[in-house]
């Protein structure tokens, strides 16, 4: 462990640079993936005939192994093989694929009586969607978002296997030197990052669903 700390001190500048790349790779795809999954999930919920093709299409996307997507995207997008953009696009695809179904199911899990009550109060169907259905679906969508965010962080490291530089490069160093310290430093930062994201999303869910705490406190 002392060796790991020493390694961290000796290489902190390099590690900080990699951490910055890893941070945007971990955040941007989750945000974009969610932003895409909300409207598409709504379509799957609103137009029942579109549910099976959308959900199975998303399932198929989710089936593609990450390493395969990292390798294939340069051929499709014309990016360089070591470009971090490939990783960002791949993780966006996974986040989207995971969340589409959850959004659609979350929206349709709202009790019909609740919807009727909202309509009776004079909500238009758009107001009802934004102010009733989405808030009620937040815990379900949030749980999916946590899974996506945490697994994305650990998937980022896979890109190092083909040489994309980010924090996973610490593992490559550990492998090449046959030594523990870089690998341990990498594992610690990756796991810490995943836990922080998880905690932040959990906090977001709590802030967006104040009624749950109110009920729990009674």
């Amino acid at each position: 462990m002392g060796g790991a700390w020493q390694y961290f001190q000796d290489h902190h500048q390099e590690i900080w640079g990699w951490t910055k790349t890893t941070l945007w790779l971990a955040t941007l795809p989750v945000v974009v993936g969610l932003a895409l999954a909300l409207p598409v999930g709504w379509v799957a919920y609103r137009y029942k005939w579109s549910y099976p093709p959308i959900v199975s299409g998303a399932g198929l996307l989710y089936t593609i192994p990450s390493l395969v997507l990292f390798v294939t995207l340069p051929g499709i997008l014309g990016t360089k093989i070591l470009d971090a953009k490939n990783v960002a696009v791949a993780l966006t695809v996974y986040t989207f694929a995971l969340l589409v179904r959850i959004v659609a199911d979350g929206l349709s899990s709202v009790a019909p009586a609740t919807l009727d009550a909202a309509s009776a109060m004079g909500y238009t169907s758009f107001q009802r969607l934004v102010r009733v259905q989405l808030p009620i679906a937040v815990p379900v969508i949030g749980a999916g978002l946590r899974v996506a965010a945490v697994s994305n962080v650990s998937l980022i490291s896979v890109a190092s296997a083909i040489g994309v530089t980010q924090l996973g490069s610490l593992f490559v160093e550990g492998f090449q030197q046959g030594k523990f310290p870089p690998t341990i430093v990498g594992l610690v930062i990756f796991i810490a990052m995943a836990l922080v994201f998880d905690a932040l999303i959990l906090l977001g869910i709590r802030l967006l669903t104040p009624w749950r705490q109110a009920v729990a406190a009674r």
Partner: protein
Amino acid sequence: MTVSVVAAGNGLPGLDRVPIWFNDPSNWWGPDGLVIRTREHLLYTASVVIIAVLIALPLGLLIGHTGRGVFLLVGLANSLRAVPSLGLLILLYVWFSERIHSNADIPYFIERGGLASFIPAVIVLVVLALPPLLTNTYAGVQNVDPAARDAARGMGMTGFQVLRKVEFPCALPLIMSGLRSATLQVIATVAVAAYLPFMGGLGRFIIDGSQQITQAQYGYPAMLAAGITVAVLAVLADALLGLVQRIVVSPGLSGRSTTRRARGRGTPRPTAEAQLADA
């Protein structure tokens, strides 16, 4: 022979090289061709999934049945998801490669000198396959209608009989979906495990290709061809397990009952993963 073909602006051989690669029989049937690599990939996947099921199924059923150790299980499953697979793989490899100096080999399975790679790879793959299997098995048992459990008890079944005849069959849909996610996870990560020397499987093409990317036969075209093959394996495995699921799950549970009862527009159950993440 080192033919370098550079077509696109990104300095990589174009996608049109992939069909050419697939068309060359020597890429299929050589000693390290597509067929042998695919066989290795499937062998690794099958052995890892079997080991993981042997561990996770009894443990998950036990936790679901007794309700003990749930907190530990949820915490463990969630934290395992955060572990970067490549990091764990390399950590274990560094540890084992100092300690294993055996030259044992198993034809088509472990290459000579590959034991120091193979053991860490199997450990990491099993560790990754456990969370979906464990959480889904546990959640499947937990989700069993309490009335069904009570009825079984009322009929005089012992705890083990309730587990075997009621809880396990009722939990099968979720167990099978856990098995499917675990299998996909393993197929994907077997490719990553090729980062370690002497490991076979289709990831070999991808890892080796990334060292000589502009090369026409072993570079980017081979990486893409192997990548497509891994993706096809994943889709086929998922479809196959979906078929198995249809066969083993009781029709009364899957809503395909022969007595076409009215299916209520009930609320869809959140997935086990989502439930646990919410816990």
